[in-house]
């Protein structure tokens, strides 16, 4: 349900970096704790991309499994039961699997970031340092 808002935010972020160049691939890293439904995000991205530099771009979603770290004994565990690894709504084991503590921090799985984009570049092949200057965000 929130995928449309996230798709719009992704397109806006890419617009800032692409500087008018068409993006062909947009790679995002999506933590399991963000409750993103991959098919929904792909669909909403296609809609949000219309008329933007992302139009027609492929959205690559890299899933990041969740990892919790116990504040009491330090052990780490994935809160998604293995059988439900792709069903984020079944993230239920927020209790340390080693000592039973409920005090934990999220070590991994809350990511939601645009990792990289591939843009079509007209003109000469610039040296890397030049290229980086061209793509620096505003």
């Amino acid at each position, binding site marked *: 349900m929130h995928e449309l808002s996230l798709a719009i935010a992704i397109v806006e972020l890419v617009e800032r970096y692409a500087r008018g160049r068409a993006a062909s691939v947009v790679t995002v890293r999506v933590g399991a704790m963000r409750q993103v439904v991959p098919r929904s995000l792909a669909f909403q991205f296609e809609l949000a991309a219309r008329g933007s530099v992302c139009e027609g771009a492929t959205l690559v979603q890299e899933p990041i499994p969740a990892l919790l770290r116990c504040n009491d004994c330090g052990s780490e565990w994935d809160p998604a039961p293995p059988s439900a690894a792709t069903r984020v*709504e079944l993230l239920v084991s*927020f209790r340390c699997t080693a000592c039973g503590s409920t005090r934990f921090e999220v070590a991994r799985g809350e990511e939601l*970031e*645009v990792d*990289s*984009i*591939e843009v*079509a570049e*007209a003109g000469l092949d610039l040296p890397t340092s030049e290229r980086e200057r061209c793509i620096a965000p505003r």
Partner: protein
Amino acid sequence: MHRTKVRIAEDVLDANTTIARANREEFDRDGVTVVNLMSAPGAGKTSLLERALQRTDDLRVGVLEGDVQGSLDADRVAALHVPVAQINTDPGFGGECHLDANMVRAALGELPLAELDLLVIENVGNLVCPAEFQVGEDVRVMVSAVTEGEDKPLKYPLMFRTCELVLVNKIDLLPHLEFDLDRFLANLRAVNPEVEHRLVSARTGEGVDAWRRWLLDLASVADPAAKR
């Protein structure tokens, strides 16, 4: 023509977080404590707010109402003679299902912030999206009605994990339902061990005093000078 890979590694919601921080600074400067009130549609956010604000002692409270359309809720709150501003999310992309920091920012001018101790932002009814978007709040409060079932904390862990208080509403209906309150509370603690809760009924008024006291304490703890 060739392709260049551009490394970005930027949080998708960075822009929102930056604006939320600016809102928060403004709230802090004006000494106003801000509550982001969230729930599913129909859980009773507005009713519980109406009940709580019927008596606020000498605390000065303002309300920001978020809805996809219309001012039904804002009209109800305004009847209590509380400063209220309405945000409608429908001019956005098909009617946003949540408030974001920028929408809140745009509405701040409509409220006398410097004259308020407490601002309650009533979010759009939804258990998913509002959890993702900070708006500059100090605390998050959720309403979960017993008619929604006891499994909701497990189904929407992101929302239940990010709030400080859960108001369990419509408890006057408990005799008519199969809702297992102990199981609900166990599920709630499983996803958020630190969270507080209050059992309330906006219809009968049960528990409303405790909810009002929680709000008043929150505002007075956060703002001991109390601006007067």
